[in-house]
């Protein structure tokens, strides 16, 4: 047993030290687009320093982030599916939804554009053309904000997407853009992630500017009445910060390859 005592002691020490010396912790469940684009790495550090809080970012799809919030495993959400967010608040899981920023969804396709969409601004018509052409369409299929948007578009087009051409990937936005590039197919993406991947994909935007493709991001504190353990002060402080001038300037100034990714409301 002598051999075991020392490692055991070290282990217990490490165990407790990690618990005791931890800063105040705020768990933010968010979408892959805000984390993978690099926005949060610019947006959060000033807040963390000012408030001495460590923000732990869980980057998943919007659907999963909302589920995490419902179970009380996060303190605050930053997601993009307005109808679901409002339902989340209405069901008492969230305190209130605040507008944070917006951009838009775009339909991406190969440069050859085999479906002949030709840079239109009609997303529904484009979906019809993609189906008619039989070229693969890669879906997130993960109940993310982008996937929810995509399902609404299929519904508007009156199409029940299924078949060999409809690829239900179940993966994050970046992975789907890469898969689509490999398959030379079409996909629906948020503009922010697409811009962040510009150097890594040769897909082009085939549809943009359709007002149905508006993509608003909201921020919601998880309701402390429902989940008493949540970091209420931290979440409130983060919402104050995110809707304040400093954060708005940071969001406005965040660009990749000279293109602004997210826009704030005036």
């Amino acid at each position: 047993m002598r051999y075991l005592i020392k490692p055991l002691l070290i282990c217990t020490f490490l165990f407790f030290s990690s618990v005791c010396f931890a800063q105040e912790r705020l768990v933010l469940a968010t979408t892959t687009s805000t984390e993978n684009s690099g926005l949060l790495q610019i947006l959060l550090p000033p807040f963390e320093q000012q408030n001495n809080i460590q923000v732990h970012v869980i980057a998943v799809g919007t659907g999963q982030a909302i589920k995490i919030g419902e179970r009380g495993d996060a303190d605050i959400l930053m997601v993009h599916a307005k109808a679901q967010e409002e339902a989340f608040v209405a069901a008492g899981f969230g305190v209130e939804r605040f507008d944070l920023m917006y951009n838009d969804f775009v339909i991406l396709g190969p440069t050859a554009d085999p479906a002949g969409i030709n840079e239109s601004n009609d997303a529904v018509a484009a979906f019809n053309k993609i189906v008619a052409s039989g070229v693969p369409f890669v879906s997130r299929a993960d109940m993310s904000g982008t996937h929810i948007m995509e399902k609404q578009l299929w519904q508007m087009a009156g199409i029940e997407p299924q078949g060999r051409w409809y690829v239900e990937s179940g993966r994050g936005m970046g992975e789907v853009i890469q898969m689509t590039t490999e398959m030379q197919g079409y996909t629906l993406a948020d503009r922010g992630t697409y811009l962040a991947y510009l150097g890594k994909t040769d897909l082009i935007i085939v549809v943009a500017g359709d007002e149905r493709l508006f993509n608003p991001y909201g921020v919601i504190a998880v309701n402390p009445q429902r989940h008493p353990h949540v970091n209420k002060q931290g979440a409130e402080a983060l919402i104050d910060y995110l809707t304040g001038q400093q954060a708005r300037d940071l969001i406005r100034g965040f660009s990749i390859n000279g293109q602004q990714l997210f826009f704030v409301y005036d």
Partner: protein
Amino acid sequence: MDYLVESLWQALILISTLDRQLLQIIVTSLYASICGVLIASCLGIPMGVLVGLKQFRGRRLIITLLNTLMALPTVVVGLILYGLFSRQGPFGSLGLLFTPTAIIIGLSILTAPLIANYSLTVVVGADQRILTTATTLGASPLQAKLLLIREIRFGVVAAVVVGFGRAISEVGVAMMLGGNIRGSTRTMTTAIALETSKGEFAFGLALGIILLLVALLVNLLLNYFQQKT
């Protein structure tokens, strides 16, 4: 091919400059794996030795169970513990989900059956005459067993190494229970998965190389200790 060579070159640059972010990921990985395997060893080795030496009813069943648990998929461990540690789950009040502690617990559950099984095999394979010799020379049963463990320590260490190998290379538990939080629960494997999804092959590759180097280093160290003793 150019693309791969280019990524490899960038990976080597990243490793040589030892990026701070990279360093933190490596430390998190090592910390979680080492703690997890230590706990698993404390459970697994005594269990393996006990089942190996004692004859009792249900022994075959336990051995079959241990063998089955060796095939435990990491995502199943992740899923079950996720349910237990979630705020809605029975251990929710501990607030363990999305912390390094959750990963450590997951890894110890994952590797304990492995270590137990390997220890068991070593004990069964050991020369059982050690026990009788020791007891005839006046050793108590416990002393005799400790002597046996001393004799088979190489095998036991090998069991721990196998456990460590599984812990540091698995991704399911770390991803589901840790949440891949930058600066907190991002391990080498979850970082590789993330960087691949972001198209940052160089960073992912750098981590892949380091993962292998760490495995090599651990094995060299153990080899050194084995030869010393």
